[in-house]
């Protein structure tokens, strides 16, 4: 009987996949959780951006009074904490959640309920952190919260308690999510998808998750000890009672350095998906790029004290960290060459995803070179804690991670929503962001060399800093305009009727085989895979990868 056969063959639809708000709250579907991550993270990104605009407005002129000293401290602390923990990491996790199962041909993550828990912990942690503005004052000792400034004696209000507790929640969310990604990647790949045939974004998410599993515990220890000091009265960081101020820095940066790779590797994976599709060529040197990611991950655990060059460590230790900080540039360079080699000789399709990806390569290279400069000890002793560092971190995190994430956003928007974002608005956004970003952050190199320290709420007239700060503020507003263009693009696109194109970019990987947006169960039949570009093989059987002498 047809109806019986139909009833038997239609896969059961998971709970929490219907319509209505409650179905979203109850969902364990990785695609919905991914969307919730992306939307929440974008809201936090905008919030962090507004905090940045406030800072830039205050700094545009010497001796400005837009923000008080105390307010400024809260704002730069919240800006850093928000961008790192509430924007960049969850944006990566959002794309990972949505696309890792699709790209490996699975129906969901290995632990769907834990996946939901990760998201809600993240949301709650973020809201808890921001509630500090209302309940007695936001944290104000910097996003890396150095002890003993953060001890009860010096940070009297509860701001740092909010920071510590939300960091613990967010760290737990990340750890749970990482465990989920690791197990999903090991266990749920489609038949034929060996590790050598797994897409680069899946690989980088996997490596990132392993790094996170090893690195987050150090942050947990550091933060737990800080909270114990503040709330119970222990003396881990209190030198006069036998504690150590440097202990915080070691524990924090043992996490903090791998953390920057946790932020950048997924974005590197993302542009490694976009560049091949928009160059019409497979990624150059695939497994070597994978290995570079692994090497970066391991070496990332051996360089942490390059954030501590000015703390009076012994020269042998300093040289060790300096040397390793140079070495870690090598695998990164390998990746950059791979992206360039992929584009070389390819048929480039200059749509917005590719523009952001190329932007990543250019801007991340600048930021990476800044890092190599700072690995030189005498240079670092001069420019540590100046605007040179601020320039470096924003070139790699904004020019790098954020540009990579926008590349993915434009690339995968059709898959998630069934509609393409406007190319015109996208290009406007790209150029505004690219020009704005360089205007904002390039002059910071000069300011750093001129000696302007970071985290100061104002500066004197006549130092020659005013003109650069003004230019930077203009740049920041251009960036903000670009983001505004994105928001307009988003809402206009969502208001327009869907076109439901499954494969608008003629792409290579499995997620484009599913519908746009995919059915709750992703694939009616689990696909099987014969090469690294399974969809390409299917669409162009004469030119299939597995036929090329494999």
């Amino acid at each position, binding site marked *: 009987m047809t109806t019986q056969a139909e009833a038997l063959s239609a896969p059961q639809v998971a709970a929490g996949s219907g319509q209505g708000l409650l179905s979203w709250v109850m969902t364990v579907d990785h695609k919905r959780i991914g969307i919730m991550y992306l939307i929440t993270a974008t809201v936090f990104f905008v919030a962090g951006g507004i905090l940045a605009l406030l800072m830039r407005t205050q700094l545009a002129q010497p001796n400005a009074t837009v923000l008080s000293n105390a307010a400024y401290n809260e704002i730069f602390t919240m800006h850093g904490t928000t961008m790192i923990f509430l924007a960049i990491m969850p944006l990566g996790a959002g794309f990972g959640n949505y696309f890792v199962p699709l790209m490996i041909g699975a129906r969901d993550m*290995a632990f769907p309920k834990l996946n939901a828990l990760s998201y809600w912990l993240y949301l709650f942690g973020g809201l808890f952190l921001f509630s500090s503005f209302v309940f007695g004052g936001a944290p104000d000792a910097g996003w890396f919260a150095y002890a003993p400034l953060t001890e009860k004696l010096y940070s009297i209000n509860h701001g740092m308690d909010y920071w510590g507790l939300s960091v613990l929640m967010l760290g737990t969310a990340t750890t749970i999510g990482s465990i989920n990604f690791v197990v999903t990647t090991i266990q749920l790949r489609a038949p034929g998808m060996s590790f050598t045939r797994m897409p680069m974004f899946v690989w980088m998410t996997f490596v990132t998750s392993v790094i996170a599993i090893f690195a987050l515990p150090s942050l947990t220890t550091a933060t737990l000890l800080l909270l114990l000091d503040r709330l119970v009265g222990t003396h881990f960081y209190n030198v006069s009672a036998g504690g150590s101020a440097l202990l915080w820095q070691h524990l924090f940066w043992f996490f903090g350095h791998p953390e920057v790779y946790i932020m950048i590797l997924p974005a590197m994976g993302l542009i490694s998906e976009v560049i091949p599709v928009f160059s019409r060529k497979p990624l150059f040197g695939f497994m070597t790029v994978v290995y570079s990611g692994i090497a970066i991950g391991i070496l990332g655990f051996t360089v942490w004290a390059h954030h501590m060059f000015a703390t009076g460590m012994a020269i042998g230790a300093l040289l060790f960290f300096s040397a390793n900080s140079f070495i870690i540039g090598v695998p990164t360079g390998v990746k950059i060459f791979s992206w360039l080699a992929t584009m070389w000789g390819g048929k480039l399709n200059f749509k917005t995803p590719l523009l952001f990806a190329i932007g990543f390569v250019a801007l991340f290279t600048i930021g990476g070179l800044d890092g190599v400069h700072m690995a030189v000890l005498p240079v670092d002793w001069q420019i540590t804690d100046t605007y040179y560092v601020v320039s470096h971190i924003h070139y790699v995190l904004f020019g790098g991670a954020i540009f990579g994430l926008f590349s993915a956003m434009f690339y995968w928007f059709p898959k998630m929503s069934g509609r393409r974002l406007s190319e015109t608005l996208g290009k406007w956004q790209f150029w505004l962001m690219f020009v704005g970003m360089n205007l904002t952050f390039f002059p910071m190199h000069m300011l750093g060399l001129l000696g302007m320290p970071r985290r100061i709420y104002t500066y004197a007239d006549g130092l020659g800093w005013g003109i650069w700060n003004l230019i930077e503020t203009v740049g920041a507003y251009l960036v903000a305009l670009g983001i505004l263009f994105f928001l307009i693009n988003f809402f206009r696109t969502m208001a327009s009727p869907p076109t439901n194109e499954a494969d608008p970019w003629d792409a290579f990987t499995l997620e484009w085989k599913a519908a746009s947006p995919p059915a709750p169960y992703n694939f009616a039949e689990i696909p099987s895979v014969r090469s690294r570009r399974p969809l390409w093989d299917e669409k162009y059987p004469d030119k299939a990868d597995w036929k090329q002498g494999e």
Partner: protein
Amino acid sequence: MTASTASPARFRPGSTAKVGLLTIIASEIFFFATALSAYFFLRLEHPEWSLPAQTPTGLLVPSLNTLLFLASALVIWQAQRAIAADRRRAAQMALGLTFVLGLIFIGGQVFDFSQSGLKPDDAAFGGIFMALIAFHALHVLAGMIYLGITFARARLGDFSADRHTSITLCAWFWYFVVAVWLALFGALYLV
């Protein structure tokens, strides 16, 4: 499209739950490793810290406790062997005994700490000692909750020679907390 086979020599962990638990254990090992590193880092500044000079009760209670805890690892190993041979009652009893030994261990720790006169806000030593023991005790408690649930399920007949992943997972977690204790015992009491 026919499937091509994956590499024959590929490592097959067996089950998603096992891979999941191993990953959780890996994360927790790094947690204890960083906490212990913090202890040793502080200790570098303080050559005067050395147990048992700091604790009036000396080594007797902690050592007995450690032996008991080691014994509990052997007991839960017997539970694994028993269920693999389908000796269900033996497995149940072994799980229950492990639980009891865990309880005695926690009790011994609480007793020893209360006798030591150490307070968390004394100086850094009191704090780090207490923190390490407390973090470990929390993990033992988590293990005991898991043990309790597994014991109850065993009583209800959930497990057999072919189906006993939960007992395996429970045992692995227990070996982990025992191994961490050995490291802590060595670091805090012997070195």
